């Protein structure tokens, strides 16, 4: 893990890391602007943009009506003149309101008429905080299925900062998912200076020999917890944190499977059409001969995210479910 066990004095949360990335990029490049609902005076629903209005003014911290289509459309139009808007969805669930702008306008412009759309769409996603069915979504796969987009879903503050900087500098539209469960629950010291983390590169969080667990976002931490449990039983799991879902780091995935010969995929997204299916297909295409057992997956149920804590806990994957699946797989 890139994280440290005991937070050092300079350690910051993911919210602060994301804010640092935006502020540093806006200081570096006048073409970077922020646009979204309540991102100014209030500093955003989760305070990610806190203080930015005071620093950069209303021309660069653009507060909009409650109109997600207008946010993405306007950002797209701004990018045609060379700006690099960072759009905030107050909750990523609301990206459904501008699905058309994202998938038909933003994603297709470069392919169809050679118009790059260098925008970032970021917002809080994910469950585990009892936000209910409209404040807990993991809608990443709608966009992973859309050619022309890039999709990032970090699990640590330093990755969030480095990847967001990469996203802002990228010439393509990037969706940047911020797991709200991780916003303030972990702290990490940032690397020195102006660093970026490359888009499309997974991180190996734990080296292991017996099986590979692939995950991302909050579930990367669940996978790590499970790996610690499994280690007590003598099962040595390798844990891969995808960090970027599109483009997918096939090389890291396939190399790990060739090493451990067993694959378990864990995601908080619902099961059908989740990225586990895509990874399983890639591994079957490229490393079928190396597999010593079936590809297993631990995912959320194929239901909306329920509100009541017992229901949501039942819906979500957890360490115990991952450990159980890994034990079963290790027996092959």
């Amino acid at each position, binding site marked *: 893990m890139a994280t440290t066990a005991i937070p050092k004095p300079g350690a910051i949360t993911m919210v602060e890391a994301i804010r640092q990335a935006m502020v540093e990029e806006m200081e570096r490049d006048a073409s970077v602007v922020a646009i979204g609902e309540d991102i100014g005076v*209030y500093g955003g629903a989760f305070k990610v943009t806190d203080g930015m209005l005071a620093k950069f003014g209303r021309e*660069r911290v653009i507060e909009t009506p409650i109109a997600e289509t207008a946010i993405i459309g306007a950002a797209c139009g701004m990018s045609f003149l060379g700006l690099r808007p960072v759009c905030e969805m107050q909750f990523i669930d609301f990206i459904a309101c501008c699905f058309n702008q994202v998938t038909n306008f933003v994603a297709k412009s470069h392919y169809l008429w050679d118009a*790059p759309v260098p925008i970032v769409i970021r917002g809080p996603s994910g469950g585990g905080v009892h936000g209910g069915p409209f*404040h807990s979504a993991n809608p990443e796969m709608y966009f992973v299925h859309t050619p*022309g987009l890039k999709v990032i879903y970090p699990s640590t503050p330093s990755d969030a900062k480095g990847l967001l900087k990469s996203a802002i500098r990228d010439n393509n539209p990037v969706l940047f998912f911020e797991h709200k469960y991780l916003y303030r629950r972990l702290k990490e010291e940032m690397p020195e200076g102006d660093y970026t983390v490359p888009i499309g590169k997974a991180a190996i969080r734990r080296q292991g020999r017996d099986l590979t667990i692939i995950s991302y976002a909050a579930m990367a931490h669940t996978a790590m917890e499970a790996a610690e449990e499994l280690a007590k039983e003598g099962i040595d799991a390798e844990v891969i944190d995808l960090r970027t879902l599109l483009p997918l780091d096939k090389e890291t995935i396939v190399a790990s499977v060739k090493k451990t010969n067993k694959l378990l995929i864990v995601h908080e997204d619902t099961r059908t059409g989740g990225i586990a299916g895509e990874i399983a297909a890639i591994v079957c295409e490229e490393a079928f001969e190396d597999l010593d057992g079936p590809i297993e997956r631990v995912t959320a149920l194929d239901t909306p995210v329920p509100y009541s804590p017992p229901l949501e806990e039942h819906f979500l994957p957890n360490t115990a479910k991952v450990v159980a699946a890994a034990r079963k797989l290790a027996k092959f």
Partner: protein
Amino acid sequence: MATSAATTTERERGMSETLKREQYLDLYYFMQLNRQLEERMVRLFRQNKIVGGLYSSLGQEAVSVGTCSALEKRDWIAPMIRNIGALLVKGVPPRDIFTQHMAKFTSPTKGKDGTSHFGDLKVRHIVSPISMLGDLIPVMTGVAMAGRYLGQNIVALTWIGDGGSSTGAFHEGLGLAAAQKAPFVLIVENNQWAYSTPVSRQVPVKNLADRAVGYGIASTIVDGNDVVAVYQATKKAVAECRAGRGPHLIEVKTMRMRGHAQHDPAEYVPKEMFEYWKARDPIVLFEKYLTENKIWDEKVKSEIDARIERELDVEQKFAEDSPMPPPEFAEEGVYCENGCHQIEAQWQRSKAEVMPPKSSFDPGWKLEDLGKLGEIPGAKEVAASGGNGAKTGGPEFNGPQKQHSTPNLPAQSFVPAPARAPEAEREPAQSVAAVEAVEPAEPRIPFGRGPKDKAFRESPDNPQNKTYGRGGAPGKSFQKAPPEKVFHKSGPNKSFGKNQPGKNFSKGPQDKSGRR
């Protein structure tokens, strides 16, 4: 307006700018080029040389050509499918239109998309449309905002049909444009039909421009078959936008003279309606006007027509001789990578103005941002006006709204909308009737029409009989200050680390504040 001479006089009186002879001839050239190009494409379609659909702007040429001619080179447009004429005015060669429709490798999109779906960011400033209607409105709002931010002093303009004006994107985009006072002109091209559905079955207001009042933006209604009127209305709107007065909506009343696309015989359109509008064909009317006003003669006309034929012969041949794209080209260009584009904003102002410390700003709301406290209407008064705060529409807008009471508000607040300007520049109140009686505010139909048109000219349906007005701005309403929501900082107390005692993450309903 009894004779063409009278209309000319009126026009000159109301005009800020008289067109030069060359401008008149350009308007004709582009309208005729637009029509002849599309007529050739109909023939190509019947020969199966056009791959996909073919949409016609027959009868609407004055809209595309008149509006786009009012723009400057630096300005941005985004065409819809019936705005081929605007593309031509912007300098797109006809071969691009032919090759796009024929899916050739030489087309602007190299065969990846058809029709008017192509753009040009660098030279002509054209944004490509997508087929989902209304989406260009927020996009062009963003173009307008970016232009202002970069100090370019541009205006962004796009079109939407009567049908597309019902979309959510229309509302969201226009709302943002209005809130931002973006230099954005929206041409609402009311061609009477959204595919097979007439306007009356889509929209419960008499004029689509009436909707501008709801956004607090200026609006104009203009006869869409009168290219000079369209040009002048747009010119004025563009000038106001450039002066920083916010968005402007222009409703152009016209008629789609063919079906939705080539496959559609439009049998649902009453024959009389086609006949009525055929007599008002924009090119025929303009030809007559040019002749009657001695702007051209038969010789000039035939020279222009011959030039168009010559040009189109060359352009069509180029397209027909062009190759189709190689199949594997389908794989290219999904991402902007390997340095395929250098993205650089063109700054026309000092970047220091938008950088700290210059950009630093006291972010609190001040009372003046929120409207005057004394202007809040009491609940009783709102109830008395049926909950409908403002009267909209022209003098013909009758119905329940007529019974509006006007409690505690000055009388001019209820001057019908078309006579109202946005807040900052509202003119002294006058009834529409009074304005009409004194002098038409703006140019009338410039063409002398035959007696057949007399009834139309005098009828309230004639858009020219409406005052050339702007939508009224709502009074500054009181807005509540942002609620003092307490944001529960779910303290960054839990560290992420394996060696911490207990679970890494305590689950709790912490990060939910800010839900809406």
